[in-house]
């Protein structure tokens, strides 16, 4: 789960990670009010969406008067902001963050994430602030300094020194930097964060460090104990069908093909998509119905898959282990009574009681249900059906 910049900055403030002052606004009027409250004569109007690259897409603008604040907020609010992370359709901007201006002397990058190979958090810093870190890593990897932090000891000053000297900071700024980085590590650990990215981290004219931007993502498995973070969840930033699937314990991700898939198990679900692709088709989705594959979950799965008008055929691929295939077969038949399935459904059931399951499906005599013998056969039949063959 991700949160907005302004929300991440709220968490930063609680831990004394320096940020600029700012207010959230949902209308141009509120934007002007926010600017007046902040005072000064320069403000930044920033679109709040869950995607990076907002500046390049026209979602971050500098205003030098309150009338400019109004004008820019009006421009940005309601726009479909397109960035390299949103896809071509972009994301609707529903709120803007109005922030005071800053005297920026130099921009850096600072990030924290889990290093899966080391099995501990790493903090990364770079002098290439404002650039996508993936690009820096690719083109000039020597410009990224990394320290791994053993969770058993936590963040130590030497971690901070290594980063600070690596960035070429003068000696008198080292301690300020260490304090900043150390506080950031606490924000990360205390909230079960999965990543924090500050891009750019800026040094001001008076030698202070500030998080000019802030991006945070969290471990979904830990949300049960992160009430404050949970309250920051913005459902309007997430795919409605994915949220609905989640409610029923299904894991669904929409893709752009036309062969719908319903599978038990995440690995087999990915493998099924790959098989469809290998057989010359395109998967319309990822869908893991979980271990039970009951009539209700299968029916819900059909509903969700068929919300996508591109779907021309559905491949149900269940490997019955503890769950018996005959029960799944009955579930599928039951599901077609609960919900209207108007495309061909290719069913491959393998594992426990697969032969009985094939009998049940055959005897049910449902016109648009086609039985398949194995994974490849099922994928081939589904691809052909989607092509209208």
């Amino acid at each position, binding site marked *: 789960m991700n949160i907005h910049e302004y929300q991440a900055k709220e968490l930063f403030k609680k831990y004394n990670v320096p940020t600029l002052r700012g207010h959230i606004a949902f209308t141009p009027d509120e934007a002007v009010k926010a600017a007046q409250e902040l005072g000064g004569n320069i403000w930044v109007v920033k679109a709040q969406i869950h995607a990076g690259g907002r500046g390049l897409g026209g979602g971050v603008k500098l205003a030098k008067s309150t009338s400019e604040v109004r004008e820019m907020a009006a421009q940005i609010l309601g726009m479909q902001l397109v960035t390299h992370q949103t896809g071509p359709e972009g994301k609707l901007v529903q709120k803007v963050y109005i922030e005071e201006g800053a005297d920026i002397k130099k921009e850096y990058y600072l990030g924290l994430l889990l290093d899966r190979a080391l099995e501990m958090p790493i903090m990364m810093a770079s002098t290439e602030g404002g650039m996508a870190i993936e690009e820096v890593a690719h083109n000039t990897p020597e410009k990224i300094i990394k320290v791994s932090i053993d969770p058993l000891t936590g963040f130590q000053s030497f971690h901070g020194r290594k980063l600070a000297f690596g960035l070429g900071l003068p000696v008198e700024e080292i301690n300020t930097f260490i304090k900043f980085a150390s506080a950031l590590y606490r924000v990360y650990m205390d909230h079960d964060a999965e990543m924090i990215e500050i891009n750019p981290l800026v040094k001001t004219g008076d030698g202070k460090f500030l998080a000019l931007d802030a991006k945070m993502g969290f471990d979904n498995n830990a949300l049960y104990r992160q009430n404050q973070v949970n309250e920051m969840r913005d459902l309007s930033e997430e795919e409605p069908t994915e949220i609905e699937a989640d409610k029923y314990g299904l894991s669904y991700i929409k893709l752009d093909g036309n062969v719908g898939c319903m599978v038990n198990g995440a690995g*087999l679900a990915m*493998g099924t*998509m790959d098989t469809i692709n*290998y057989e010359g088709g395109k998967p319309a989705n990822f869908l893991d119905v979980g271990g039970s594959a009951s009539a209700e979950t299968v029916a819900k799965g059909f509903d969700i898959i068929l919300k996508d008008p591109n779907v021309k055929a559905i491949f149900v691929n269940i*490997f019955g282990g503890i769950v018996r295939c005959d029960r799944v077969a009955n579930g599928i038949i039951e599901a077609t009574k609960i919900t209207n399935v108007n495309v061909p459904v290719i069913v491959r059931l393998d594992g426990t009681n697969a032969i009985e399951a094939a009998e049940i499906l055959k005897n049910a005599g449902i016109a648009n249900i086609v039985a398949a013998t194995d994974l490849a056969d099922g994928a081939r039949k589904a691809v052909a059906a989607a092509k209208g063959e």
Partner: protein
Amino acid sequence: MSILVNKDTKVIVQGFTGKEGTFHAEQCIAYGTKIVGGVTPGKGGQEHLGQPVFNTVSEAVAATGATVSMIFVPPAFVSDAVMEAADAGISLAVIITEGAPVKDMMFAKAYAVKKDMMTIGPNCPGIITAEECKIGIMPGFIFKKGNIGLISKSGTLTYESANQVVKEGFGITTAVGIGGDPIIGLSYKQLLPMFEADPETHAIVMIGEIGGDLEIQAAAYIKEHITKPVVAFIAGQTAPAGKRMGHAGAIISGGAGTAAEKMAALEAAGVKVVVSPADIGKALAEVMKK
């Protein structure tokens, strides 16, 4: 022969009396696994499925001589259970539970390593030595005895692969579901040498997926140290970047962890890589002919 577990392995169950623990412990016992007891704090002294229940893992180990623990406790208590097992001198913990926080596993794994305890999982089907010992939730009947070692991040793909292996006339020595979380216990790199050293294992099937770099590490290890044939499939060739594909660890982030890079690395290491998971059995039959 086999790796890690066999018919003599003594196993306790943490979360023994819960719904999941009860159901699967019963299945394991039916398969022939030596379940010698279980742990549920507060229920010590009772009997469950014909076996004694203990309040602590230490008591269970002292009374039964168990060396392996199968863990079914809810996600919020997994790290505590793993650390308790490590502290009690268990040598292998098989963590079935799905949904454990990453931070908790980071601490639990570090502690297990310090205490010299191996872990499998979390979020995995477990480990099975065909027709001897099943520690986990997989359907046992698929795993006919034979000469193929199996390592997989995914549960149902493990069953799918084992099924294909058997259909081609082969069988399994040991199959290990290592789990699909960002931090897991034993991985390919630790399991491959065990299969290499096992005289009964003649070839290895390895199932990976997008996210992380464990398969890349495996490729480097195979290139240097593995002489037995390896067949591999990497799930998620068609998965979009930046999306978590069901498993917490199955995500292409920052352009890294793609199926393509893993497949290329494995191919370069001499592994027979299949593009479609439907071809795992066939590919194995081919490498076994050579």
